């Protein structure tokens, strides 16, 4: 034990010199990095696939909705035309009544004009909205 102080440096060299990395350190690290890289790639690929599927699904839905809304708007316009035509055929007695005056005065005709405008806006909405939606 008395040789310790004089050989402290040598003993510390031996002590810490024996602390070494295992020979397979680098191989283990590369394998770990490759595994992480593969996992990241897989997640990235899955994400892109999911986004493409979502985008396709959204486009189909919008196409469907556009057609649906177009059909509804067409029906509304047709219905409105029919109502207007029906109103023309009403007997003069009805047209001169107080009820008719009330309906005409409360902006019934204005409302009938708004219907096709709203229908056109509904048709065009998905087209404008599609370009702004996050993908």
């Amino acid at each position, binding site marked *: *034990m008395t040789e*310790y*102080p004089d050989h*402290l440096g040598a*003993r*510390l*060299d*031996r*002590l*810490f*010199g*024996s*602390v070494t*990395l*295992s020979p397979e*350190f*680098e191989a*283990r*690290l*590369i394998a*770990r*990095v490759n595994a*992480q*890289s593969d996992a990241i790639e897989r997640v990235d690929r899955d994400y892109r696939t999911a986004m493409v599927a979502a985008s396709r699904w959204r486009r189909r839905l919008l196409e469907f909705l556009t057609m649906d809304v177009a059909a509804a708007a067409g029906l509304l316009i047709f219905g409105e035309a029919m109502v207007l035509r029906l109103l023309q055929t009403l007997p003069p007695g009805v047209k001169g009544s107080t009820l008719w005056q009330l309906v005409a005065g409360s902006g019934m005709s204005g409302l009938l004009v708004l219907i096709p405008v709203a229908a056109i806006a509904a048709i065009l909405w998905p087209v404008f909205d599609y370009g702004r939606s996050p993908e």
Partner: protein
Amino acid sequence: MLPQSADTQGTTIEQQIMGLVRTGQRDQALRLIVPVFKRKVFALAFSFTHNRDEAEDLAQEVFVKVWQALPRFDGRALLSTWIYTITRNTSLSALRGRRETCGIEEAVASADNEAEVERMLLQRLVERLPDRQRQVIALFYMQDHSHEEVAQMLDMPVGTVKTLLHRARERLRSEIGND
């Protein structure tokens, strides 16, 4: 390795690595980094943990972090400084919540020859040193006796490293004398 040659090699590697990072080849960049820094990262992690297996695991973790962060490395700091910072932070995180797991007493008891017993006793004395002295002494003897290298790795002035080293040796001599 001499400090000057380490710097020269470090600069060259750094330029090569920056080139690879810019072209998105981080796997290749890591393959360049690991052989140069594995021993240093391991030594630095060991200076914190004083446990070989844990230090090796930490070194692995550090290189995975380096690989993940390489696209964000902009070259403003030295690559070595950046890697040592990651190593210190990773080691400190690992140390948080755990202290002293060595079981050196059992190891001494199970040592089967005098040299091994002396080695274990010296290890026990080193482990009793204050944290910074213990770190400096481990790194100094693991890093080819380079004060500059130890200073860079621990992010402290060279003078501080020399002082801590001197105090650690004095303390060890005194402890050994009293043993």
